[in-house]
């Protein structure tokens, strides 16, 4: 890129002026070049999100409409993914399922990771007894296997989409809390934060204006890495019959429906599961790339933190 060196003052001014806009693109291009797999993940993920949003236009049929003339038909030109026990079109159900699964996963991760992160900022910055008690609470939350905690909570607060979202969100809180807390602790000791304190800024103001911005990168990493987990938990809840209740098509529900047959039809098992796998894979690949780009140190530390932040 020989042309990128400015040869005159005016040109330099022009390039500098154009900088903010194109630098984002250039960053993205560099990200894509360094993480080709993440680019694939991002594109596939984007395609799935677009499909989910435009489901009413993309899906060939109504996902809830039974057709008793065509029950349990294997894939053919009429229904590319076959039909289920009551003749509903599997392809349409998989597409609508993306809607539910993605919405639940995004909402849960947003809710859980954000709550956990804000809590973590407060823990890390305030320290003291608040931190101590909070750490114990998070430890207790992490003592539950994810799926089992989510099952118990969604049972308690009733079935329905909000219940599932809250249940999954609660299992995400301690992860956000622990990671962001450690970031906040290191930021607290920085000089500009000290300067803020010295000039009499309130704790809330320092946390919001000085500590929080430093937590954005790890927050993004956390959110993307946990999207895949949230999707799997949602699917497992649906599969076990404690997720978003039928007839709403979700990938988990579809798998649960499929095995009510004595001999399950292969297309009813294959496609919803494939949808889960491809989606999770896409978000995981994207998450790996974002993690490597934003915070190369986070990966091993992140895993260690999952185990309770021991120093060994």
């Amino acid at each position, binding site marked *: 890129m020989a042309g990128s060196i400015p040869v005159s003052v005016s040109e330099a001014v022009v390039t500098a002026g154009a900088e903010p806009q194109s630098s984002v693109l250039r960053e993205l291009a560099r990200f894509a070049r360094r993480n080709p797999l993440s680019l694939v993940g991002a594109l596939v993920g984007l395609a799935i999100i677009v499909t989910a949003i435009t489901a009413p236009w993309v899906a060939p049929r109504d996902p809830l409409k039974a057709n008793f003339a065509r029950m349990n038909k294997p894939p053919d030109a009429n229904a590319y993914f076959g039909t289920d026990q009551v003749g509903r079109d599997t392809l349409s159900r998989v597409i609508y399922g993306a809607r539910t699964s993605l919405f639940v996963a995004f909402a849960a991760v947003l809710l859980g990771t954000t709550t956990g992160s804000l809590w973590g900022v407060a823990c890390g910055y305030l320290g003291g007894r608040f931190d101590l008690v909070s750490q114990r609470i998070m*430890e207790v939350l992490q003592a539950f296997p994810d799926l*089992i905690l989510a099952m118990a909570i969604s049972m308690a607060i009733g079935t329905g989409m909000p219940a599932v979202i809250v249940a999954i969100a609660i299992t995400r809180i301690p992860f956000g809390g622990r990671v962001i807390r450690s970031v906040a602790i290191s930021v607290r000791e920085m000089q500009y934060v000290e300067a803020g304190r010295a000039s009499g800024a309130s704790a809330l103001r320092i946390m919001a204006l000085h500590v929080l911005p430093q937590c954005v990168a790890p927050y993004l990493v956390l959110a993307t890495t946990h999207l895949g987990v949230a999707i*799997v938990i949602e699917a497992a809840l649906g599969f076990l019959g404690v997720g978003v209740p039928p007839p709403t098509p979700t990938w988990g529900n579809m798998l649960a429906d499929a095995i009510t047959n004595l001999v399950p039809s292969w297309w009813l098992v294959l496609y919803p*599961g494939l949808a889960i796998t491809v989606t999770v894979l896409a978000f995981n690949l994207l998450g790996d790339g974002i993690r490597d780009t934003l915070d190369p140190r986070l990966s091993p530390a992140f895993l260690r933190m999952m185990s309770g932040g*021991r120093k060994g």
Partner: protein
Amino acid sequence: MKKYLLRRALFALGTLIGVSMIIFVVLRVLPGDPLVAILGVEGHRSMQPADKARIMADLGLSDPLPVQYVRWLGDIASGQLGKSFFRGDTVRDLILHRGPISAEIALLALVVSWLVGLPAGILSAIKPNGWLDAVARFVSIIFIAIPGFWLGLLIVLALLFWFGYKAPIIIVHVWENPWQNFQQVIGPAVVLGLAQGAYIARMSRSCLLEVIREDYVRTARAKGAAEKAIVLRHALPNAMLPVITISGVLLGFVLGGSVAVEQAFGVPGLGRALVIAIIERDIIVVQNLVLLYAAIFVVVNVLVDLSYGWLDPRIRF
């Protein structure tokens, strides 16, 4: 060392008491009326208040919450763990009957994960960015993404389709018929083990690559030791600690995942019992089983912690 052990045990006990409180609060306080949870909204509405009160008293649910909580702790202390709402037997019987098969699955999954994950990680680390490394990493990325219960369904389906084979569906304990028992547990164990193995491969690869940069490894190289010997004899032992840690953490995935995987394979283990109890809203069974799963997770992670002192002489408690 003894002092540390005691402190660690007390700490774990504290965590478990917190766990029991959260379970208790989640199951009793959040839904408001536990009868709604048992009978469903419709059934609850159509019932006479007197009948409701009687059932509540029968189940011991009309006492103040602290009394109920203390009674539960008493049930735990006595080892009986309370009774199921729907069946007469105690939760203890349920665990003794169904627990062994789930425990077998978890242990076997651990074995599978190490057998698959460790060699994969080592092969990756011997020649980083070589083609073997690329294949191993690709496969582990795939296996991390595949939901275990779906893989389980596919396996069940494939066996049924091509071989007309189905694993026994009633509980067969290992001491009754080892071969049938093996058929029952091997499927879930392999599925759970492969997912774990993917994480272990990743972890052992990155730890090995970290250790390989250390001075003593360079010394071994300078000595002219073969690359294989360097990795296996010098680097590997020091790279093992984080791998063992991750194995303890992964137990959470196994415990949670086994619930769904048992369902997929139709194995009548503890996970199935938990799912049924949740769908039937059998609070007493749910609270005890959830506590059991959490307790196993906590205890294993304490053991992992303690194993550090034994595996790495530099660490003194």
